[in-house]
């Protein structure tokens, strides 16, 4: 049997062709289609990947620093409001910056969407509205581009693939009222990964306590977080999922400056230097940054993009088209059907996306 060298460890939620009704036939000799994976890989490397990540949280929680740490590059400015005369933003605004990162042969077009002004005023009612609207707008733009008669060959994907929600490290307490509200709204439209910011203010016992409280809050308020459990999942995938869910929310510390390690001066580490100790961001005993990085970058990067397309975008699309159909059915009955173009399987899982 031809064995397929995997591109990456099998992510959860992928469809397998063996589920279809077709007998498997052994091959008599060499055919050569096993190199299709290399061809695909080459094409994908040529095209580059697009990844859109959004960070949501109050100002001063270390979002920009964390992004800089995650991608090991200075991507966002992390100084905040410097002068007392600078006005404090009264509403949440959305600002997107795009960078192209290259690691090895892979080119990544990274878009980071920041939300300055989120929850920064005294009355934060509906401060999440601009965020949800932005996410839906991206879906809507993509849908419109898909539905036009003459489509571009490759539609630029601006849909948010992952949303990192930063939770304030409150000792001995779970989610705040604002957190619950925003998480509920966001979990419906985007893959949300909650993160406990600035966790160097919590000792290890406090972290465990806070995580327990937050996890019980997730269950209590019915917040459905990525990775989602899908009906067709292998045991490996479920195990990985379970493991991830036991780590959520991740306790992270952000540090963008590097300095030599105190005991091994030749090694440069990224961390924070205080008078009572040196924090190494990449040390698992200090914080869970490496786990989060592995999760986001190494194992689940492609799955995030996939899930956005398959779950969130499809859900949005279905709702939109049904709504359109109903509205036009109410207006004029005949033209309703035209709005729903016959669509072959849009699961272009492997060939272009």
């Amino acid at each position, binding site marked *: 049997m031809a064995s397929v060298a995997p591109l990456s460890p099998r992510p959860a939620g992928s469809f397998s062709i063996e589920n279809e009704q077709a007998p498997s036939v052994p091959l008599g000799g060499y055919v050569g289609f096993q190199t299709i994976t290399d061809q695909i890989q080459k094409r994908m490397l040529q095209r580059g990947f697009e990844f859109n990540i959004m960070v949501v949280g109050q100002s*001063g929680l270390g979002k920009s620093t964390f992004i800089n740490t995650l991608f090991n590059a200075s991507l966002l400015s992390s100084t905040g409001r410097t002068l007392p005369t600078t006005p404090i933003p009264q509403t949440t605004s959305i600002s997107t910056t795009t960078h192209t990162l290259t690691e090895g042969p892979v080119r990544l077009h990274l878009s980071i969407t920041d939300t300055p002004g989120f929850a920064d005023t*005294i*009355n934060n009612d509906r401060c999440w509205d601009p965020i949800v609207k932005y996410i839906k707008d991206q879906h809507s733009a993509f849908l419109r581009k898909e539905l036009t008669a003459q489509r571009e060959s490759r539609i630029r994907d601006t849909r948010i693939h992952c949303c990192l929600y930063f939770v304030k490290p409150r000792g*001995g307490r779970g989610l705040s009222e604002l957190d619950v509200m925003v998480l509920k709204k966001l979990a419906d439209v985007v893959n949300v990964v909650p993160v406990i910011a600035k966790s*160097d203010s919590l*000792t290890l016992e406090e972290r465990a306590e806070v995580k327990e409280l937050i996890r019980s809050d997730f269950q209590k308020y019915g917040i459905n977080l990525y990775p989602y459990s899908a009906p067709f999942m292998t045991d490996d995938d479920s195990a990985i999922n379970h493991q991830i869910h036991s780590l959520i929310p991740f306790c992270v510390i952000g540090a963008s400056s590097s300095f030599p390690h105190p005991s091994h001066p030749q090694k440069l580490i990224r961390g924070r230097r205080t008078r*009572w100790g040196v924090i190494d961001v990449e040390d698992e005993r200090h914080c869970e940054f490496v786990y989060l990085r592995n999760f986001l970058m190494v194992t689940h990067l492609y799955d995030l993009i996939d899930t956005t397309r398959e779950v969130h975008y499809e859900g949005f699309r279905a709702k939109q088209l049904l709504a359109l159909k109903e509205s036009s059915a109410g207006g004029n009955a005949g033209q309703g059907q035209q709005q729903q173009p016959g669509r072959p399987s849009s699961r272009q899982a492997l060939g272009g996306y």
Partner: protein
Amino acid sequence: MSATVPHPSLFPSTSGGQTADPLQSLGEPIGATITATATRMSSERGSDGTEESGVMVQREHVEEDEAYMSLQSPHEVRELQTQASAPTSPVESSTPIPSSTVVDLTPAEAPKPPVKEIIRKTITGYVGFANLPNQWHRKATAKGFAFNLMVCGESGLGKTTLVNTLFAKSLEDQGVLPSKVDKGIGPEVPKTVEITNITANIEESGVRCRLTVVDTPGFGDYINNDLAWRPILDNVEKRFNDYLDAENAPTRTQLRNLETDKRIHALLYFIQPTGHSLKPIDIEVMKRLCDRVNLIPVIAKADTLTDDEVNTFKARVRADIEHHGIKTYKPEENDYDDEDTIMENREFMAKMPFAVVGSLTQIELPGGRRVRGRKYPWGVIEVDNEDHCDFVKLREMLVRTHMEELKDRTAQTLYESYRTEKLMAMGISQDASVFKEISPQAKLEEERQLHEAKLAKMENEMKLVFAQKVAEKEQKLRQSEEELYARHREMKEQLEKQKQEIEQKKIRIEAGTPTMEVKTGKRGKFSLGR
């Protein structure tokens, strides 16, 4: 002639020989400290070999000794001069002279008037009122102190832990400090800021303190935090109101109890260690509260900030505070403070807002030392170490040095301004006459003037009345005069008429006209009977 000097026998003499005075040993250091503040002259007096007993009156001048000397009478000067080297008799020499200067003053020299005259009594004998602070101390410790501290800040910033650390006691054991009560989240949960009280009596070396900590759970925790400051401000003002009522009550024995003073003496406001700057809610609340309480901003959970971050953050917070005109608590600078206190106060001001960490747990360091701190995988932060955080400074200021000043400022400045505002709003205006100086002379003058004014007024009045009456009378008389004239004329006319008639009659009678009217006869005229 000379300045008055009490007879030396009234005071125990310290010159030449020690009196067996049991209090002397106690008085010595006190006396020493007092004489330490004496002027240069008295020290030179000591070197002179002369010793005065009793109280010396020194007239100090801004000028030098020469001018000072000029006040002495010539007799005295000569006497002193003759006895310059020999020990002077205590009675005579009331004013010492430096042995170095030999003054030759002639009586003709006009004495220069002193520019500034301060009479300071230098005590060389023992009086004992320097024991006054001890007496106050004893009485106050018997009574105990009360201190009311309010903590304000979002939940999870370590307020309770810090208060426990400050007073080295877990106040949760004393009562219910509902810091971590989970009320749940939902539309039916009331979204208000509560005010909770917890009181504990703590004692250290015989000094008892009745400590009240007021917590504000729910502050800043909701989505909508508008008017989060209102319950806090209302509570502070209510405490002022209660005290005002107690002060205005007919019987004020309550005021001597510790429990009556519930006014908040200090408010610790906890700032989130974002590293950027103040949040809008911080600015809003601090602006509202700074006029009613001693506001001490504190950066919570300072173990998340490195050195540089702490300094930048503090600078930005201070800039924000200044920009918005928030009046935080500043230790007062007095003129007669000693160097140490001034240095201390400057250090406090430089470190504000204090970046603190709180912890009650004892950690054992690798070296074997046990410290209060927080243990992380990368190290242990010590709460009591000044290099690690500003907790020690905060405790110094709040508990050890400035507690009384905080209470004083609350009572004098904050409470008084509240009281003034409230009473003026009620319509009670300032009665300036209460402050007028009353000297008998001025009072007499005033009274005299008033009296004269009164008399003048009366005089005027009487004149008016008189004139009025005169006019009236005049008018009346004129009227009656006219009437009289009228009557007179009338009567005159009548008489004339009668006269004419009679004349006619006379003529007729003389003419002998017989014709007489019968009528007239009947009228009673005399008829001859024809």
